[in-house]
């Protein structure tokens, strides 16, 4: 049995449609952001990932998550 980690996943903007806003989800150790993106089923073909953050810092899709991390996913957003 591989060791499991808890990751708080937060979705924003268009990703929230028909999906959760925030959820604590379990993954196997060393899961990378890309796998979690796929697991949430957010529509990245229609709205590609704009920004990914782990604990409030920008990361790329290959970033491996640790237990207790918060992963935030945004499509391209802007304003001013």
């Amino acid at each position, binding site marked *: 049995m591989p060791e499991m980690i808890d990751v708080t996943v937060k979705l924003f903007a268009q990703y929230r449609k028909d999906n959760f806003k925030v959820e604590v989800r379990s993954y196997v150790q060393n899961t990378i952001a890309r796998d979690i993106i796929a697991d949430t089923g957010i529509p990245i073909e229609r709205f*590609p990932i704009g*920004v990914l953050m782990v604990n409030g810092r920008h990361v790329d899709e290959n970033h491996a998550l640790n237990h207790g991390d918060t992963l935030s996913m945004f*499509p*391209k*957003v*802007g*304003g*001013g």
Partner: protein
Amino acid sequence: MADKIYRVNMNDLSFKIEEVPQEWMGLGGRGMTSTIVAAEVDPECHPLGPNNKMVFAPGLLSGTIAANSGRNSLGAKSPLTGGIKESNVGGTSAAIFAKLGVKALIIEGIPEDDSTFYHMHVTRENVTIEACPELVGKDNFEVLDAMEEKYNKKVAVMTIGRPGEMKMLISNISVRDPKGKLRSHGRGGLGAVMGSKKIKVITVDAEKYKETELADPTKFKAANKVFTKALKENPISGEGLPAFGTNVLVNIINEAGGLPSMNFRSGNSENAEEICGEHMAENIEARGGSTTHGCHAGCVIQCSQTYNDDEGNYLASGFEYEMIWAFGANYGINDLDLIAKIDHLMDDLGVDAIETGVAFGVAAEGGLVEFGDGEEAYRILAEEVANGTPIGRIIGSGTGNIGKLYGVVRVPVVKNQAIPAYEPRAIKGQGITYATTPMGADHTAGYAVATNILNSGGYIDPLKKEGQVELARNLQIASAAVDSTGMCIFVAFPALDDPACLPALIDMINARFGINLTGDDVTNLGKTILKTEHEFNLKAGLGSADDRIPEFMKYEPLPPHNVVWDFTNEEIDAFWDF
């Protein structure tokens, strides 16, 4: 007929038309207003005295079919910062000015008889100035109604409410948008300058004008097509802004730890979910309202909206991130509808969202109000500010002055102007813009948030110093140039990421005037504008010691990343090495 300069002298209520000097021919918008202010206004003058001037100038592309080209610039010496100011806004005035052939409208002097206020009406080749005692003491929506009744629904209107009449530093100049709502020349206390000249309202005739002429209509159309496509296909300007408005930023800035909260004590707000753009869009959908609305006719992005209460009654329009952040996160109101009510009241009074909201944060720090008490903020605005009571005057004097009056050290201002919705400690490139822009703390002067947080134009780590000065410099140069075209700043998103966007913009300018600007020319224009403005500020007494972020940010670590402002003076001052 070539474009002209319209000059009004309030000393004797006279008007004349002047030729545009050759060297000003290629200027528009901010390039025009800053050039004229620098040439004609004594940098040492009192901003509310007879020697300050107001200069309106439409953008180079205003009045054409170019998408998003309807921004009008207003320049003056700011009574809030003591430096030069340019503030641009949508609405209908830019296009009409351009169609009337007004390259700039310069207003100088102060009437000898200051017992009343005046209504200025601009038509083709004429300006009339008449006393309007019936409008004195009225706020913006009433003035708007009176003007629509007097003229027609298309007339452009620029007006001040009671705070502007009283020359309060939080007052702005409101401009009618195509649907009869208001936008504003928001920052720097320009409403007070209009009040000092005893001008209550300026209207611009929308009936008798000629269409703007294009040197090369075919080329212009082709370029506009490419440009419009770039705006529509960009995920931010084409999808995000129409769907959620600018308020989509609450969550991403909060997640990044850069959302100034409780008077800049933290970079996270407990209220984020309550006040965020996603929640606002849900409310709009459930209550009937609209997520899309353009602040001027040619806008293809439509970041504005109409927001109703839970019974479907209109609450606010142009309900922006800055307003919602200032009252929601920074002053702590966790009720979006109440913030919308305050927004509408502030539109009517004509006070700046950022300066006023941040003023309430500092007032809470000083014990005048309590954080999060939205009802009291509403009351103070409606009763005290509107009537100019001593408490109203205190709030109306802006963030920096309240801090002084109440002995507050945590006062978020640069050049006495309130810092907007992005924390300098946690979004360092934006901090460099606040410190260095000649405008005082202003996010639109060089929107480093794009590259620090939003992954637009690449990515530069917001918590590190590397690359930030260069980023802020490049963005400020580009913004100064874009502010001269009449384009809204959200053109920046496609411009940063789509290589077709900027060349198309330059092609349009060339096709409009029959000239051959290159990208380098445009960059040089931006540099010249910045230097002109900087020079004015130096002469006005704003030196490098004023290009600074408030001291408390150097020793108070900002949660959640626990970062301080750590640039040396030399690092900041290197901004001007160009």
